[in-house]
């Protein structure tokens, strides 16, 4: 069961960390409409994370529930990819990060919805519709920012360039996954690369943003080697639970 636990935890950590990043915009979004949109998208992801953590806790069978998994692990125990923990930056950087992730997560959840694992399939089937909307929302913004003013174009291009080294990790397959893919439980990310590429190319072209060249790709998140940003994020996310263990409403 260890590979299935690891795999479920990876998916959950991706969703929680990115969901938390989006929630950091609450109270800071440029307009009311976008504040609600970012909150909605953050809630989509945190909802996915909750289902996955609950399931991971079940698989592990050591009595850890979703709260324990979300609030009581340190950065080195987190298994999310590095892209999702990158700071919000400006609005263009947040939207670019969202587009890069959602353009992957949408076909990924479509594939995972066919998993032989009934729980993963059910969580993915629900997430698929949410991620389809995240692609649309972030794509429309990137197009308008990229093809907007000189400044918005420059910021959007900078966001693409800065985040590009983090996209490679989404398509990595390691031993844990190879086994689960062979068993029909995990979704193979490799064949999804072409669709991701098509989505990004279409949106960046329309946004008049140059597609950054593939070069050195960052990796290590799924092995617990994170950027310095995750520790700060967790300090904020876990503060209440750490300060008041077992606190409830």
């Amino acid at each position: 069961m260890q590979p299935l636990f690891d795999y479920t935890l990876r998916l959950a950590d991706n969703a929680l960390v990115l969901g938390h990043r989006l929630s950091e915009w609450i109270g800071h979004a440029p307009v009311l409409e976008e504040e609600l949109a970012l909150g909605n998208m953050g809630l989509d992801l945190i909802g996915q994370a909750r289902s996955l953590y609950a399931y991971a806790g079940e698989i592990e069978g050591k009595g850890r529930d979703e709260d324990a998994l979300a609030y009581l692990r340190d950065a080195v125990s987190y298994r999310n990819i590095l892209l999702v923990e990158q700071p919000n930056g400006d609005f263009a950087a947040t939207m670019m990060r969202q587009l890069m992730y959602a353009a992957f997560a949408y076909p990924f959840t479509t594939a995972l919805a066919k998993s032989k694992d009934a729980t993963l399939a059910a969580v993915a089937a629900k997430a698929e519709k949410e991620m389809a909307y995240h692609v649309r929302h972030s794509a429309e913004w990137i197009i308008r920012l990229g093809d907007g003013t000189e400044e918005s174009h420059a910021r959007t291009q900078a966001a693409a360039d800065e985040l590009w080294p983090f996209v490679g990790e989404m398509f990595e397959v390691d031993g844990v996954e190879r086994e689960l893919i062979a068993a029909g439980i995990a979704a193979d990310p490799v064949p999804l690369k072409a669709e991701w590429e098509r989505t990004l190319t279409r949106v960046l072209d329309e946004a008049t943003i140059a597609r950054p060249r593939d070069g050195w790709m960052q990796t290590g998140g799924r092995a617990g080697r994170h950027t310095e940003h995750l520790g700060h994020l967790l300090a904020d996310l876990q503060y209440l639970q750490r300060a008041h263990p077992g606190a409830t409403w």
Partner: protein
Amino acid sequence: MTEKNWPLWEVFIRTRNGLAHRHVGSVHAVDATMALQNARDVYTRRGEGLSVWVVPSNAITASDPADKDMMFEPTASKIYRHPTFYEVPDDVGHM
């Protein structure tokens, strides 16, 4: 930062098939596509809708509240326009 506000759009939502779209409020957005997205995010968070329309607010011509008396008052005295003098058999149900 630009000082100019985004244009305003009126939002209409149809809650069920067969019902008409009802006005629910307004959003700011730069264009129709974004207005639709904003309307979705602002007004359908609790499963309110099956369909959303957005209309530029400046495309709506509205009656002036100051003209209320002239516009609507004269109908009040013409009770014969209200079909309340007919006996509707119980079996007919809602007409």
